């Protein structure tokens, strides 16, 4: 008998789902702070740098996920050095590292003389390519990053909201920022195994962008982001298996649809309910401007 869920009989699908779930929790965990600090491009940066790492792994015959992790951590150090020692603007520093990563990747791919299947699976993600080794690494890194985010939640929130106030009130801002960049590098390196290098930063930003449309506090925004990310990954893997598509594309497309739905919901809700109630509540003209300032994806 063939059913919709008989893919569960395959060990590789179980691995894909497990790794996918870990990634679905990881990406919004890091993404919510990246998005709120307007640093979404750092996701893109680590993705490009990871490509160089993967290419290096394939070229040298070393486990590509490990080389991707290593190169990403190197990029994290480079970013901090450029920002602190050379006083380069963050966005420019990111652009420089993206260029360095991408050019290195192109050269290494050229040297290995093959745009092979393996590289393809890293670029677009692959359901069947996730090995037991990958799964262990994804799980270990996932545990580490989630633990970090839990332990440093109040610091991460305060710094994201108001770094200056956090610093002046005695928060160890530099320490937390450094750990955060490392956690971001780790998250992206392992997440790309599932969604692929080209789309990994979408999974970092889209569920958070959607959650921002409907969240009414930081807590609920974070919960919505997790729900959206898990839904997108589970459905995306399902569709990808049945339609024989690359998982990255289906997962992120579903995330895009979720964002559109959330944005639509907010527009209707705001027009019909909240704004009306607010106008009756207060006569402060400043309150009106608020409605237009909630970040949209264009801001990222």
């Amino acid at each position: 008998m063939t059913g919709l869920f008989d893919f569960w009989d395959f060990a590789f699908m179980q691995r894909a789902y497990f790794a996918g779930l870990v990634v679905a929790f990881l990406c919004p965990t890091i993404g919510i702070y990246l998005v709120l600090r307007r640093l979404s491009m750092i996701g893109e940066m680590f993705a490009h740098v990871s490509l160089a790492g993967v290419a290096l792994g394939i070229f040298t015959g070393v486990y590509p996920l490990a080389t991707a992790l290593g190169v990403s951590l190197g990029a994290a150090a480079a970013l901090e050095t450029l920002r602190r020692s050379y006083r380069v603007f963050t966005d420019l520093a990111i652009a420089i590292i993206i260029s360095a990563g991408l050019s290195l990747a192109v050269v290494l791919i050229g040297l290995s003389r093959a745009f092979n299947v393996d590289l393809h699976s890293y670029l677009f993600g692959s359901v069947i390519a996730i090995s037991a080794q990958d799964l262990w690494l994804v799980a270990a890194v996932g545990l580490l990053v989630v633990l970090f985010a839990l332990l440093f939640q109040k610091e991460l929130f305060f710094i994201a909201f108001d770094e200056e106030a956090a610093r002046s009130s005695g928060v160890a801002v530099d320490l937390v920022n450094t750990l955060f960049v490392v956690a971001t590098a780790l998250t992206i390196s392992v997440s790309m195994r599932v969604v692929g290098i080209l789309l990994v930063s979408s999974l970092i930003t889209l569920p958070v962008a959607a959650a921002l449309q409907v969240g009414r506090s930081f807590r609920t925004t974070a919960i919505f982001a997790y729900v959206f990310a898990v839904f997108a990954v589970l459905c995306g893997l399902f569709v990808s298996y049945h339609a024989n598509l690359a998982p990255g594309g289906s997962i992120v497309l579903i995330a895009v649809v979720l964002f559109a739905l959330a944005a639509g919901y907010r527009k209707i809700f705001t027009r019909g309910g909240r704004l009306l109630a607010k106008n009756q509540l207060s006569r402060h003209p400043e309150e009106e401007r608020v409605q237009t300032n909630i970040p949209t994806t264009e801001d990222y």
Partner: protein
Amino acid sequence: MSHPVVELDKITFYYGDRMALDQVSLTVFSGDFLGIVGPNGSGKSTLLKIIAGLLKPAGGSVRVFGTEREHSRRETRVAYVAQNVTSFNQGFPATVGETVLAGMTGALGLLRRPGRREKLLVAETLAGVGLADFRDRLVGELSGGQQQRVFIARALVAEPALLLLDEPTVGVDVDAKERFYGLLAALRRERALTLLMVSHDVGVVAEQVQSIACLNGKLYFHGPPAQFWTEDVLCQAYGSAVRILHHADH
């Protein structure tokens, strides 16, 4: 007994080649309410940021609560409310309660999560600034004056002994301004709080504070408001740059 809370000794600060502060020495005692005034670009905000530990002076020493600022980077008795604090990302998804609770972060230290005591403090502080009913509202949805009070509450929740305010009443309407000064007066009655407030609004500040520091690169005056008007320092600090400086005794 009042003891020195802030001791600045010959502070110098440069932005690139431009000297923003020139040998500024100033001592603030506990319980004082000091207004720092001066024209635009006179280094008022810079001085406050140095005291807050956000900027490092090129020369001179900064002592806060008797400790060199450099060695007390984790000083949690100081609270700083920045200029334009209300120009934050208005779409930031934080409720008033979440925002004020964040003020406890430094005082709690790493790895400690806020518990019932902290939540209680948040409720008390919000009641103190008149925002008890706003705990679950998004900060971005409040008026400018209300947001101002949220950030004051965030600074106050960790029960600081030194509160640094940079142009706190810019961008809020007259009503909110009056309420704000009322709040400061109440806070000074209830807590052992030393207050430093930067403002360009000399007239209003002189009415509210206990002492005034007049700054324009150098410190032109430090003393009680009554003396400030008689000493004619205003035209010196604000007047032409070639005027010879005059140190009033404090």
